[in-house]
């Protein structure tokens, strides 16, 4: 991309001022980044993604901005979202490869870098990373298997949760007993890496029992990272362990509660639902999630 002219930047700014939902936020944020206005680029990108949550290119830009500011974990969140939206995204696999390499998880790094190399074998950064990986593996005397589960290819856009094993509860039907409740908009089980393990979620005006879409997957991916922040906030205030979070948005009330290990259960209800109903139903959702996960809570 050539450097945008001042006229182009002004045109995008005006377009965005006229229509905050305009996709012009993306070229404008890119232009700001190139000019070194990192904060402005970040702000534009975050606001743009609120209206265009499935825009892979915007998530890629956000990942680059985080990476350039040294916030590798946040960059990793964005790559994770990109892979859920677009399972073969080169940039996301390359980023995840670097992330795992930095964290010494060579097996996960190998999987992501190999998928990048399969698409662009001549990419110098991928080749360099693979050489570095070989070097570090030989020094370590083999591969580590620290988070082999992280290697599982992410689901493609719009994917439903994994099919159930014979005799087991179908992950998409775990919260089916709650569907009869009028305020219910859906419930999800999300792990610490932001992967949706089970449940359904009505996005916009969709049916609460409909298969998951990319937006619900993206929500899970973003909230997966909230667990640690919730715990750290509670600890810094000497409030002990966190027990739940209640979010009230313009169109929904959402409750999150910790399950065992690093998992959470999310319950979404209509915005006008009394908090008491939400809390009681959240407890039912947690019990259903616990049953699905094998009663480990």
């Amino acid at each position: 991309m050539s450097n945008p002219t001042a006229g182009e930047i002004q045109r995008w700014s005006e377009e965005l001022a006229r229509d905050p939902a305009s996709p012009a936020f993306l070229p404008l944020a890119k232009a700001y980044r190139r000019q070194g206005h990192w904060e402005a680029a970040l702000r534009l990108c975050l606001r743009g993604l609120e209206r265009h949550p499935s825009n892979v290119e915007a998530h890629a830009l956000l990942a680059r901005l985080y990476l350039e500011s040294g916030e590798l974990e946040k960059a990793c969140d964005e790559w994770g979202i990109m892979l859920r939206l677009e399972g073969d995204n080169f940039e996301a696999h390359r980023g995840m490869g670097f992330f795992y390499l930095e964290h010494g998880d060579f097996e996960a790094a190998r999987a992501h870098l190999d998928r990048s190399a399969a698409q662009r074998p001549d990419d110098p950064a991928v080749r360099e990373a693979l050489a570095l990986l070989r070097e570090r593996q030989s020094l370590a005397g083999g591969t580590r298997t620290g988070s082999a589960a992280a290697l599982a290819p992410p689901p493609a856009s719009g994917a439903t949760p994994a099919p159930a094993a014979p005799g087991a509860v179908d992950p998409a039907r775990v919260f089916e007993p709650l569907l009869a409740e009028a305020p219910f908009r859906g419930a999800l089980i999300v792990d610490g890496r932001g992967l949706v393990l089970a449940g359904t979620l009505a996005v916009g005006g969709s049916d609460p029992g409909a298969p998951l879409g990319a937006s619900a997957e993206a929500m899970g991916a973003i909230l997966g990272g909230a667990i640690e922040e919730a715990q750290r906030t509670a600890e810094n205030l000497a409030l002990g362990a966190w027990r739940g979070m209640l979010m009230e948005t313009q169109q929904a009330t959402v409750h999150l509660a910790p399950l065992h290990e690093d998992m959470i259960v999310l319950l979404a209800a209509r915005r006008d639902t009394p908090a008491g109903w939400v809390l009681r139903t959240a407890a039912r959702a947690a019990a259903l999630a616990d049953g699905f996960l094998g009663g480990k809570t």
Partner: protein
Amino acid sequence: MSDVLSVALSRLSRVDGVRGALIVDAQAGVPVVSELADGVAEPAVAALAASLFRRTAKAAGAAAFGGLETLQLEAEAGHVVMAGAGELVVVVVAEADAQLGLIRLEAQRAAGSLA
């Protein structure tokens, strides 16, 4: 503006069960004004609360649930209630047995006066 912030914070701090309150710049994660008990790491709380608010707001946007208005964190020994006010977030720390309904109302009112 600082008078408005101080008045909003002072009113919140007088509610039964409130241990402290602060107003935070949502993007920068820094406190703008605060009334927190001694010993509380104010910068850390401001940064974490703002980060948590931003993340959940982003998640709400991703699910097309609209803008985040309030966020309530429940913990063993208390609650944190946050209300969005444009570029600012009102953060209230409350006791476990506090009147949460009233605190949420006051936090929303404070946010409304700042937005």
